[in-house]
């Protein structure tokens, strides 16, 4: 029972402190925010970073959505095809680091997808 009373005291103390600390933090943040807006107002006439976005815009020429779709499709198809077609044969290519790590274990996928019908990787 004594311990429960102690717990109650601790609760009073704890809730007070938690609220106090976060309230103080909130007040400090309001102060920081207020100062920031003052600073920004004072700095406002200098639109220095404006040209930078402008430059960025230049890098992005207008492309008709249709062409964009074609290019997108092409790249996706290319990537998909390449992943499927160009899988290197494990026997030809250089032993990878993973294969060599202590000569013990390996990425088994690399040797796993063997096509028994075609006799090929």
């Amino acid at each position, binding site marked *: 029972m004594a311990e429960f009373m102690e*717990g109650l005291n*601790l609760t009073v103390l*704890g809730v007070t402190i*938690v609220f106090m600390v*976060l309230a103080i*933090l*909130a007040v400090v*943040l309001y102060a*920081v925010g207020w100062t920031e807006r003052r600073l920004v107002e004072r700095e406002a006439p200098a639109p220095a970073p404006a040209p930078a976005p402008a430059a960025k815009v230049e890098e992005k020429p207008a492309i008709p959505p249709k062409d964009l779709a074609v290019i997108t499709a092409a790249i996706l198809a290319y990537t998909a095809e390449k992943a499927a077609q160009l899988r290197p044969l494990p026997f030809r290519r250089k032993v990878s680091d993973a294969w060599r790590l202590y000569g013990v274990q390996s990425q088994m996928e690399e040797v796993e997808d063997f096509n028994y019908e075609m006799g090929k990787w």
Partner: protein
Amino acid sequence: MTGIVEQIIAFFQGMGLLNLTWGNVVMILVGLALVYLAIRYEMEPLLLLPIGISAVLVNIPLGHLANWPIAPELPEEIAENIFAVMTYLNQQYGPPGIFDLIYYTLIRTEIVPLLIFFGLGAMTDFGPMIADPKTALMGAAAQIGVFIAMLTALALGFNLHQAASIGIIGGADGPTTIYLTTKLAPEILGATAVAAYSYMSLVPLIQPPIIRALTSKEERKIRMEQLRPVSKREKIIFPIVSMIVIGLLVPSAAPLVGMLMIGNLFRESGVVERLSKAAQEELMNIVTIFLGLGVGSTMRAESFLTQETLMILGLGVVAFASATAGGVLFGKLMKHLSGGKINPMIGAAGVSAVPMSARVVQRMASEEDPGNFILMHAMGPNVAGVIGTAVAAGVFLAVLG
């Protein structure tokens, strides 16, 4: 031919199967259950998978992965001296297994929970709280759940150190729970950690009924004004100011809040990207592995399979539920004070479990009114809840530690 007979006897005496206790079997099943939940339902898999599988492993008898007890009887003069403790345990219980080393050098010293807070800081954007500082108070209100759970635990017969560790589960911050429990009541570390992470992933089930019970349809429909933009300068100043203010007021929370804010400063400063990335990724991943393995290794039959563990799991629900209620009720108070501009549901996000509870709130708002977007407003209490729980842990440590 005595040799071979003796060897076979020696070998079979050392066979784990013959030394398996019922406790071990149950613990292995508990571990497997955690693994199943982690894989099948993706319940906090980054923690529950390692915790579960190492619980399985340490309950295989004689496996030499964990030879030392979690909460050993120690001669009083060395109890506080981690180096002397390890030398003593090695003398008493033989060389450390890998899980003993992880637990005693990385978790018991608090290195791992603090490094995780460091990484979390580098992952967290405190912008929503900076934009609307009053939401910080809802992060405070949700801590009421911590204290209600503590009082309930006391009433159920736990001692004050254990009760505080159980209460902090309601803060819904895994590393804070681990940090505090390790300091105050390491004997229940496994139970509090599992409870914290399990209920965190159950937030989408636990919170909605409570929120619905405490708010009206009209309240849930309240739309809020768009948050003001936050400048880079404010985001840089925030971690510095928070660290100093909280450190000066509650120094016992300084390790947790300090590491969190150093990580956040790395993130927001923009000049140490490779360190910020390391804090979020390579260091974080490695530390998370050790945290999971280390915590799981504390789940031994002799200390975990007690009625207390079941009570702790029950108290975890109390903690999460009362934290949610505390946040929502305080949200209603703020609604009244603000003249109805604040949606009280966002108070529920004060329990942390970032960003899940904020998403729960958003989903409930969308259900009532598909055009109501309060996610970012809920992120304010959400991140404030992390600080609030760290402060609550600091108070416990200052008084009890």
